[in-house]
């Protein structure tokens, strides 16, 4: 909103020409991050109180039967705070007409909505088993994933339409016209493989895998939010480069027109993540719940596909990959098929707890690994 205000109303006015700052993505990104962060800091305590009073807490709070060693009774659904702050920051600082922005907002609302409904059911029945069934959850996610992929791959609706690519080709780029069907891998500068419409199932798989693995990671205080912010940061930087015609040329990236706007969203996500960590750090005052983890996962999934950097998630989101893979192997292959555990515990963070490492220590170690993975991901900017 402010972007339009500056661009069309204030900038032409004499004495307000400094407002052209708002046309710079870097400037808006920083302000979006600050907005989301401060919003959460200001509203945090009120929101926690509200959630608590309206019963959005972990499990039944039974007066006099509280285990002094457990976190039971902590409010959940703090993800609404993240989603709200990010949406507001997007509304204020990004260009709402940008198709990339629109899809990310759609993903955030849809996935956040699924998570919200799931949390709502759990809170209502005061039983963590009473949420949405696994099948319903996956079904709702798949619906979005398929619709998104169809829009993304259909030339008339794609943000990577041939028309836009032709603009690039006119400017001397070698990008293939059907770039949207191509796979791109880290450490290599050119598109590798034309998947044609096989890209659709691939994309659906990526969306389901990423959104659910973030969900699995949300098990310990601060475990999901920090790696999610780090991953968002990496993708934010990538989208800044990819969306910028000069930087992308220098760094040998395939330029995608309009994708720079994504870095504002991802910066807002980082800001909101830090704000949320303020309250979520051990011992947590609020949990993000499925609302938060699903929304974060959905956004990261859609961003990774639109930037054509799905495989970067293996590195940048390595923690989520490990969490998701461990659950999948344990549940489906181990418990479901073979009748035995393959890991001592899954998701993987419980494995470390099982071996006698305290929650706080596990979380910090995961952060460290997350930072190293972030650095490795950033290395792919130059090494390609």
């Amino acid at each position, binding site marked *: 909103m402010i972007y339009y205000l500056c661009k069309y109303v204030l900038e032409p006015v004499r004495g307000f020409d400094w407002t052209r700052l708002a046309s710079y993505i870097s400037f808006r990104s920083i302000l979006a991050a600050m907005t989301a962060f401060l919003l959460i800091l200001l509203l945090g305590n009120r929101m926690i109180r509200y959630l608590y009073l309206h019963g959005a807490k972990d499990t039944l709070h039974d007066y006099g*039967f*509280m285990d002094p*060693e457990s976190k039971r009774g902590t409010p959940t659904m703090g993800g609404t705070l993240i989603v709200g702050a990010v949406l507001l920051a997007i509304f204020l600082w990004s260009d709402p007409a940008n198709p990339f922005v629109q899809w990310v907002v759609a993903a955030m609302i849809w996935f956040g909505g699924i998570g919200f409904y799931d949390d709502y059911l759990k809170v209502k029945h005061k039983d963590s088993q009473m949420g949405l069934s696994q099948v319903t959850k996956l079904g709702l996610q798949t619906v979005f994933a398929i619709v998104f992929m169809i829009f993304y791959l259909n030339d008339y609706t794609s943000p990577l339409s041939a028309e836009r690519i032709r603009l690039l080709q006119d400017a001397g780029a070698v990008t293939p016209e059907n770039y949207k069907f191509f796979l791109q891998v880290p450490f290599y500068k050119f598109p590798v493989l034309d998947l044609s419409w096989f890209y659709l199932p691939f994309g659906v798989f990526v969306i389901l895998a990423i959104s659910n693995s973030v969900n699995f990671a949300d098990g310990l205080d601060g475990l999901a939010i920090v790696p999610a912010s780090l991953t968002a940061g990496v993708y934010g930087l990538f989208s800044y480069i990819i969306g910028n015609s000069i930087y992308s040329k220098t760094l040998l990236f395939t330029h995608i027109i309009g994708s720079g706007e994504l870095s504002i969203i991802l910066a807002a996500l980082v800001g909101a993540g830090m704000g949320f960590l303020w309250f979520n750090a051990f*011992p947590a005052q609020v949990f993000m719940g499925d609302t938060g983890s699903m929304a974060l996962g959905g956004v990261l999934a859609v961003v990774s596909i639109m930037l054509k950097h799905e495989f970067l998630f293996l590195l940048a989101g390595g923690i989520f990959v490990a969490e998701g893979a461990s659950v999948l192997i344990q549940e489906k292959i181990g418990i479901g098929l*073979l*009748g*035995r555990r393959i890991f001592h515990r899954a998701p993987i963070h419980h494995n470390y707890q099982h071996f006698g490492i*305290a929650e706080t220590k596990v979380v910090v170690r995961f952060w460290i690994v997350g930072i190293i993975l972030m650095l490795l991901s950033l290395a792919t900017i130059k090494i390609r």
Partner: protein
Amino acid sequence: MNFILTGGGTGGHVYPALAIAEALKQHFKDARFLYLGVRGRAEENIVPQLGYKIKFVASEGLAGRKPGLRFLLPALKMLIGLCQALVIHLQFRPAAVIGTGGYASVPAVLAAVILRRCGLAKVRIFIHEQNYAPGRWNRLISRWADRVWISFLESERYFPLSRVEFTGYPVRRQFAPRDRLEARKELGLPAEAKVLLVFGGSQGARSINRAIVDALPALLADPLVEVFHGTGNLKAPNYSAVKDTAARVAELKLDLEQLARYHPRDFITEIQVYYAAADLLVCRAGAGTLNEICRCGKPALIIPKSSLAGEHQAVNALAMARAGVCEVILERPVADGEGGAGAFIDGAQLAARIQALLADRETLERMSRAALSVNGAADMEVFVRSVGDELQGIRLGPRRIKAAPDGWQSDEAVKLAGLSPAGVLAYVQKNVGRLDPEALEKYPSIQLLRYFADIFLTDRRWPVRNIGVKLAGLTLHRERRDLLISIAGDRVPAPLYKRLLGKDFSQVGFIRRNALFSLGQLGVWDEALSGLVFSALSEDPYYEVRVQAALLLIHFRDKCGPSAALVRALEANLAHRSLEVRWTCLEALGAVAPDAGFLERMRRFNFHPNWRIRQALLKAAVHLLERGVISAGDPGLKSLEDLIPTCTDFIPTFPLKNSLNRIHRLRGGDANPAGSTQ
């Protein structure tokens, strides 16, 4: 006037439908009947034999209880059957549909419902339920029925109250109770004989046939006992009721006097005579048999057929037992080694129960009186009147509504029979698991729960067998102890393609682990268990089994005593890949190690980077001290002084919650169970 009869899948649904038809035929002179059934099931033979016309529709039951794809095929078949039934309805234009349950009845009844809703027909719908707890299909279609006829008064709570009518169980010809002495004269029996009538239905029941033969020597030892045994004429490829029974009796080498008092019959024709003459019946719990028992007022020892839909025979029998009509023995389902399932009844136990009952005249009298009071005779006129009233537009009069309709949840047996295996387990964990052994023995449904454990233990699907293993432990099913031991040590390999993925034996890791755990719950330590633990510790490829075996040694610390072999096996596990195996085995060493030098030998663990291993060493020292193997001044304890005391885990305490709990206690509340565990 046209009637559609329907119901089937099994004969138990078909005969009642035909009995009702017979009664209607006598009253409505212009009555025409058409039977709708499923091809290849019981009705295909029975219905034409008795002179009724039959047409076939497609339908199929749900094989298991588990949801998923297996619903798909039955649903499709029923859809096809529904279309067929619609066509038949429109051609035949029945005034009423009479359904007696079973999946075969669903298409015909649903078609009637649809036609009625569309205003295309004014057909009335009648449902008859033969069993105590309604079958799933009758529960489904009863909501559209005009009248629901029930055979047990107590069944009314399972149906819409305003439309339930108690009619009893319909029989084709009146079964007139005969005089006891007269009947005995007819059979050539002395008046003072103790007459036992054993039969397992028209086909016969293998488990009952074999058990009663096993029980014969004990029973016939009493010179007054006469045994009439209806073996049935079942001729399966691997079992012929008559031949198998005769061969087994011959093996017993009974003397002639005893043999003269054993009367095997392949088929009992004039059964009412035998009923009248008998002092005690041993039989199945089909609805028809139960009805006859009640009509004749006969005490019975009932062995319900196992593994039926909804375990309805067991539920029937237990309901009757509560009413004091009968006693119940639950048979034990076993896998017969050829992929099929059979059942087993312990002959000695059967003999003991029969003898106890025959000796107790008073109880027999009481059971007999109770039987007569449960069911008024099912007067077939009731059905005629009910149909006639309904066709003339006379609805059922207002009924007293129970203050609190307790619904089908109130009867535990019915509830349990309706649950999935996982549901049964959850129910047991919640309601039974915390009882102490004495209270457990007195728990009303304990017999049924152990019976469920038996059923699950013979299942082909490992997750169900796993639940059976857990259930056997939770219900302290001591009779299955040997089975649990053999399961935990089972080394039958899994199919190759699963082995490639990492599966080892067909009794999967979870089952072996849980069998060990259940053996711990049973609380008996002996040579067999010791051998099992040793083999688990030294051979089992799955780490959790080794962990459980070590935990078992800790559990039986004071019973198992020192054993050099076990110590060797445990020490070998101190280098196992899994840390969890290492720390449990280290602790278990403290529970079985015979020597005082143990702690010094284990000194290297003082500096292990993982604190759980170090803690296990300390726990082992505690075991040694408590067992009295070492004394307080032991030099080994001195070696523990340099153990690294840092620890990467801690338990946080939230002081605010402590204060809240304190306030609660000061207000007179209960102590906080969670807070007091520290």
